[in-house]
């Protein structure tokens, strides 16, 4: 046998891929028309999108931004685009967008909610992004008091004294040996500081104009209720989940009872309890703020769901992780903090963020008990005889605003998952 078998000695130069596989054509071939079923679906979807846009775009674009009432809108649109054309009346958004954002907050004080919101982003950033210097966490801890004071106004001494009480309590607590004593010192110092705040106010009155809850509305209300609920429900939910998986009988019974009760009751019912029942139980004359009552109920509701999401994460951890933490000689709180929770929370991220998004959207239910959130306000705006009959424009605006918030939360959760995925390898 002579060498009839051909063996290539040198490697061929790489060629560019065939034109059918690159560029837009190639991408479309692969992704849109990969198979017969694929092609059919693509054509159907494209038709649906085109039909939708053909119907909605003229409505969105052939609109009026400057009219002062719905009838004026209709006149202008038919003058400009011809008789019988249906266009959006965006004028209502132009006239009322500040009301949709801030409710009846005094317009000269709009800087306060805006500043609160900007500071909120600042306070959240060290929590959300680990690359931000850790020292800023101090600001995050103080922020709830700053935010409360900015939104509701009034004397600075109340929130200030509580922060001071915490600071003194933590400082003094470090010199105490037992945990129980530490907590006692903390509570005592907060209480004492709160008691003297009244005297401070009479001695040196410092404050900004107080705002009543009734003046808040629109997205200010949604964001306030939503953020407070979100921020508070996570730690409470963690504690409830730990309590439910605990071996301590009474703790476990309380946690199970709480979670199952709250999950067995619709949020609407809890809101009705907050708005109507609670103030009947209290002595006549007490004025327990409605928004505060709603925030408490929403927080309790979200905490119960959060607890179950986190319990799912705890259950998904292999038993070996718990045993490994025990074998290292860590006590309960250390093993939870250092070994269990970091892993359990990571598993639970999608569920946690879903709960957050659900909670934020559920804040619109407060319109049923007469609080003027964006949906409640849209009813009020429609009740103005100038804008009576406007529906799609207002709901569209509300939907857009909610989409921005919820989409941001959803993207953040994906970022966090990717990041933790990488850091795990």
């Amino acid at each position, binding site marked *: 046998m002579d060498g009839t078998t051909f063996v290539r000695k040198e490697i061929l130069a790489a060629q560019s891929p065939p034109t059918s596989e690159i560029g837009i054509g190639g991408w479309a071939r692969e992704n849109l028309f990969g198979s017969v079923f694929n092609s059919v679906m693509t054509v159907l979807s494209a038709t649906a999108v085109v039909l939708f846009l053909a119907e909605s775009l003229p409505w969105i674009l052939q609109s009026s931004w400057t009219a002062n009432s*719905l009838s004026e809108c209709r006149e202008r649109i038919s003058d400009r685009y011809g008789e019988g054309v249906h266009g959006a009346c965006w004028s209502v958004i132009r006239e009322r967008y500040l009301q949709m954002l801030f409710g009846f907050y005094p317009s000269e004080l709009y800087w306060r909610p805006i500043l609160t919101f900007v500071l909120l982003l600042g306070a959240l950033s060290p929590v959300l992004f680990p690359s931000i210097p850790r020292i800023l966490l101090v600001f995050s801890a103080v922020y709830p008091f700053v935010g409360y004071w900015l939104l509701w106004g009034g004397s600075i001494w109340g929130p200030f004294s509580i922060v001071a009480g915490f600071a003194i309590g933590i400082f003094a607590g470090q010199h105490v040996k037992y945990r129980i004593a530490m907590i006692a010192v903390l509570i005592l110092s907060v209480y004492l500081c709160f008691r003297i705040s009244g005297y401070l106010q009479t001695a040196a009155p410092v404050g900004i104009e107080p705002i009543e809850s*009734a*003046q808040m509305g629109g997205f200010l209300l949604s964001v306030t209720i939503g953020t407070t609920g979100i921020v508070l429900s996570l730690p409470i939910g963690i504690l409830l989940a730990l309590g439910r998986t605990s071996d301590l009988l009474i703790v476990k019974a309380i946690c199970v009872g709480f979670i199952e009760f709250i999950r067995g009751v619709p949020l609407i019912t809890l809101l009705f309890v907050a*708005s109507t029942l609670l*103030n009947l139980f209290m002595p006549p004359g007490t004025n327990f703020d409605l928004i505060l009552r709603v925030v408490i109920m929403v927080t309790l509701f979200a905490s119960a769901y959060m607890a179950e999401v986190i319990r799912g994460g705890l259950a998904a951890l292999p038993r070996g992780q718990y045993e490994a933490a025990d074998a290292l000689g860590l006590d309960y709180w250390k093993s939870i903090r250092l070994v269990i929770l970091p892993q359990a929370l990571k598993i639970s991220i999608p569920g946690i963020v879903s709960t957050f998004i659900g909670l934020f959207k559920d804040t619109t239910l407060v319109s049923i008990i*007469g609080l003027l959130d964006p949906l409640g306000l849209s009813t009020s705006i429609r*009740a103005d005889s100038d804008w009576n009959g406007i*529906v799609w424009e207002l709901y569209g605006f509300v939907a857009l605003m909610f989409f921005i918030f919820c989409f941001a939360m959803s993207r953040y959760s994906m970022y966090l998952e990717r990041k933790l995925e990488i850091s795990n390898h």
Partner: protein
Amino acid sequence: MKRLYLLAAAAALGLSTGGAGAATLDDVMAKGHLQCGVNTGLVGFAAPDENGVWEGFDVAYCRALAAAIFGDPMAVKFTPVTGKTRFTALASGEIDVLSRNTTWTFSRDVDLKQTFVGINYYDGQGFMAKKSLGVGSATELNGASVCIQTGTTTELNLADYFRSNGMEYDPIPIETNAEAKELFFADACDVYTTDRSGLAATRASHEDPDSLVVLPEIISKEPLGPLVSHGDDQWADIARWVLNALISAEELGVTADNAMEMAAGTNNPEINRMLGSEGNFGEMIGLSADWAVHAIMARGNYAEIFERNIGVNTPIGLERGANAIWSDGGLVYSPPFR
């Protein structure tokens, strides 16, 4: 619905034992403002404008009441309440007076322990249909699909009406008025039923109001009026006589413009007694002598309030009809100031 009703009843009961006898007027004076429950938004009756200032037919009454007490129509804060929260808000003392197009019924008055202080609008349930349907009377509606708000008295009235006339109908239940409008305009139902004032407002918001027709039948009585809690008769008297003052003012020709002038004294002793230049009615009711002058100057007399908010020259365009003053053939009537 039933559960909420029981809840409200229990609430009212609890309060009537706890809070009875408290002088609401003193509390209101101490607060420095009146707290008034209004609709979260009903065209012509209550709505906030772009600056957040509430105006409307029901709101004007609250302003008059605040003016009678404080001399200032702006000394009133508004709590928007829904159909479900309104009675507990009143029973728990969260609001001092409820002025929210509320129908005066036996059970609300007696069982829920409230005091209706009068009637400021005589409404009734009606039907609206597209002209193209070719229906001229509600008796021709056999087999029609009807858009109806759930959980309201209108739902029950509708069932009663069709049953007593031996007709069938197909109810399309909806939650809010806005939803009903969209469905009705989009031909999802043949007729839309609610109070006639609401029908007029809905019709006015349509692009072509003439294509809609309100059928002549009125199938229920809906006397709307302000109300206060049981247990404080002085407060109920104040609320009642402020409303009566507005109505009497129309009858006697006292308006927002001439009230101050007439308060100096006129030839008509009833005007003099009402406006305080004769007698001591202010002292009897626990207010200043010129309480009625302030109430009338707040937003005008009954006719002025009606015309500004819901009358024929507004987009809602309601005729006075049954709501004309009694001397013009209507039902609106005030006991005398004597």
